[in-house]
């Protein structure tokens, strides 16, 4: 008979648990961080990094780093990414020290402003240099915030993609879908923050909580690293008799998921089901069967089940994936040093500061006028860690250096909105991840004469 010695001293595995750091950069980032703090996330270090002292003091995070002590003197970066970056560079040692020891670093930033677009890529790179897995949760500005801001956001995003292992992008325009049009603006932004916070928390939970079917660090890396760093995320929680179905439907309803239609393009999909001790096999089966309708046969599915007593009667489903080819792209994660080599000129362009100061808090964002074609100046190389982005992350700007031209073309084709014609308003017919309402000849690329 096998007996377990009562006095058997189990090795304390707490030191094996993964150290997680959540970094909020800029006003939008620290708002998200506050939300994460309020919702509670187990044993993760929260760090706020900002140029604006006011916002920094208001933050509830344990660690705070002020950027640009001498450069901006405690004011915001005035919507200027260049200034944001310079401010961050000034505080490089401080940032490094807070990032130290993190195995997984979540970077939250609102792109479009100065600190978010300028400093976030820099912080991401520092985190990468600490050999952490870096996941970026970035929000993109509303389109009504003006062209300029969108361009700044896109540039920031391109850089983030170059350094981060994965970027989960929350487009504010799409986030608006989850909020009702008549909802108060404060509430609407809170909903958006909540979604981001849910994403962060569920990845953190997934990494930390012991699971019945455990998905480890490796699984998350595999799912997020392969793609072109366009993250997909869905989270749903429900209780009651039909909670399995409801939670999955909620997860797929997440604005990032596009009702699960985007899942068919993913090569790796990670599903994590979390619930109390009363999760039944039937429920898992329902979720997985339903989900299988949305993904194609070649997709590698990682399934994890975690039992968490705090969940009681609730059941939650998190879906995590990234779009794009799964062929490992050397250079993004493994060889950070190589990045310094190529500096495509177009990427170095930064907009000069504009008159309108947009604060970091999205609520007070104003549409930025973009009448004047502002002089673009290549950024001077700042010391050895030069800002650069490999060309592949920005196919639009430098198509000539695109190494895999055909594949890139294919990718663009897929993202084109394809018409469903008269079925636009009906429930889509999705089988094996294919939306059958879209004409077959379009989906199969049959050339009709």
């Amino acid at each position, binding site marked *: 008979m096998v007996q377990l010695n009562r006095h058997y001293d189990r090795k304390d595995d707490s030191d094996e648990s993964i150290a997680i750091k959540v970094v909020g950069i800029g006003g939008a980032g620290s708002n998200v961080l506050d939300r994460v703090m309020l919702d509670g996330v187990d044993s993760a270090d929260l760090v706020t990094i900002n140029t604006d002292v006011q916002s920094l003091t208001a933050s509830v995070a344990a660690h705070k780093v002020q950027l640009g002590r001498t450069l901006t003197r405690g004011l915001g970066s005035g919507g200027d990414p260049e200034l944001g970056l310079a401010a961050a560079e000034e505080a490089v040692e401080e940032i490094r020290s807070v990032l130290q020891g993190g195995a997984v670093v979540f970077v939250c930033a609102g792109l479009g402003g100065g600190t978010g677009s300028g400093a976030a890529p820099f912080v991401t790179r520092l985190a990468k240099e600490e050999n952490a897995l870096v996941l970026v949760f970035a929000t993109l500005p509303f389109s009504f915030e003006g062209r300029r801001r969108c361009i700044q956001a896109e540039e920031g995003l391109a850089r983030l993609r170059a350094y981060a292992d994965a970027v989960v992008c929350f487009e504010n325009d799409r986030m608006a879908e989850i909020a009702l049009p008549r909802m108060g603006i404060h509430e609407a932004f809170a909903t958006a923050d909540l979604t981001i916070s849910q994403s962060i928390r569920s990845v953190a939970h997934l990494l930390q909580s012991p699971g019945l079917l455990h998905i480890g660090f490796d699984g998350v890396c595999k799912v997020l690293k392969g793609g072109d760093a366009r993250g997909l995320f869905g989270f749903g929680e429900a209780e009651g*008799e039909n909670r399995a179905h409801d939670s999955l439907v909620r997860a797929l309803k997440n604005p990032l998921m596009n009702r699960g239609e985007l899942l068919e393009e993913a090569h790796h999909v990670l599903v994590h089901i979390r619930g109390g001790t009363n999760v039944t096999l039937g429920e898992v089966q*329902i979720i997985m069967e339903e989900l299988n309708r949305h993904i194609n046969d070649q997709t590698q599915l990682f399934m994890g089940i975690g039992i968490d007593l705090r969940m009681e009667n609730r059941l939650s489903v998190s879906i995590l994936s990234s779009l794009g080819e799964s062929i490992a792209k050397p250079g993004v994660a493994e060889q950070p040093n190589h990045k310094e080599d190529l500096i495509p000129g177009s990427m170095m362009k930064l907009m000069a500061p504009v008159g309108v100061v947009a604060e970091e808090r999205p609520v007070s964002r104003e549409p930025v006028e973009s009448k004047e074609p502002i002089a673009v100046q290549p950024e001077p190389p700042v010391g050895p860690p030069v800002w650069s982005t490999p060309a592949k992350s920005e196919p639009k700007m430098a198509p000539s250096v695109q190494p895999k031209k055909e594949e890139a073309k294919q990718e663009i084709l897929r993202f084109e909105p394809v018409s*469903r*014609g008269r*079925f636009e308003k*009906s429930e889509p*017919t999705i089988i094996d991840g294919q939306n059958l309402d879209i*004409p077959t000849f379009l989906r*199969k690329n049959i050339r009709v*004469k």
Partner: protein
Amino acid sequence: MAKDNIFVGLEIGTSKICTVVAEARGDGTLKVIGVGNVPTRGVRKGEIVDFDTAKRCVHDAIADAEEKSDVEISEVYMGITGSHIRSFNNRGVVMLEEGREEIDGQDLEDVRANAREVSLPIDDCILHTIVQHYYVDGQDGVLNPVGLLGKKLEADFHIVYGIRTRIQNAIRCVKELELEPADVIINSFAAAQAVLEKSHKQLGALVIDIGGGTTDFVIYIDGAVKQSGVLAVGGDHITNDISIGLKIPTARAEKLKVEEGDVTLATAFPGETILLKDETGFAGREVEREALNQIIHARLREALQIVKRQIETEQNLHYIGAGVFITGGCSQIRGLQHLASEIFEMPVTMAHALSMAGVTSAFENPHFSTALGLVKYAHLVQTNHPTSSGFFSRAIRKFSGIFRN
């Protein structure tokens, strides 16, 4: 006229609503005495999306049939479809209590109830529980176990279920017109009743009903339903594809599909065009015949391949001895027989309802297969219920309350 021998089948289809009125005659055959048929609006993919419009269309179809058959309709057998309808096979088991060895009717009920005890999503309800085979003490091949001696009765069932609210939509539509829904039958079963003979079911047959909004299929093996399914792709999709591909309005695309559509590739002369006459709101133009055929071919090939794949996953393809029977409005497209036999690699019959007395034009048109099947089903249930050992009496309707409200 006695109400008992009049059966009315109502199919609320995506393209048309069809009402068939049939009379049971003394010799046990059915005579079709009237067919009401109106084009539908407010139905997509076999399900009602615009309740009031659809209700008006149902009303018109019923009125049309009443006028043609001179019968006042009060009770209808309804066909139902939709992408939410799923099915699976399950086995039920009952043990006879100590001291009793003879299997009785109650045991059949119990074994059915046992098989129905599966965890379905809470919104779903069971539409059909159809027995496939009985086993007494593990011995198979039992046709009717009532009266046999045994300790353990098992039975395999084919269970069809769907989302309750979506089924209720159709039922409510009929109820609001002061009609009584006598039963709800999924379209594929109804179509199979219309086009298959008993020998086909024994040999193994696949019936594919390609309608306006959905493609419904059912497989019979050894005389019992083995698998069924609904694919929410139909003729509407072809029309939509043509409309997008050739950039012509939907109404024109529909006409072009019906008049000129062909699924066979490379039959048109190079550069052969079809002239579309100009109408109000549409400037005439020419379209390439090959392009039209390519679009139709791609869509139908895909739809049939999906059906085939679903059958292959359940490993039923090899048991189909009598071949494939294709029916439904969309089956009239030219060249479909050839395409289907290429895909399924077995003989394909373009089927319409087996002959009945009465309005001949009704059963010679594959459009009406489902509606005719509904009256046949109704007739069989009515005549065999509840004592006979026929297949249909066993398909006892248990609707777990979908008729409520």
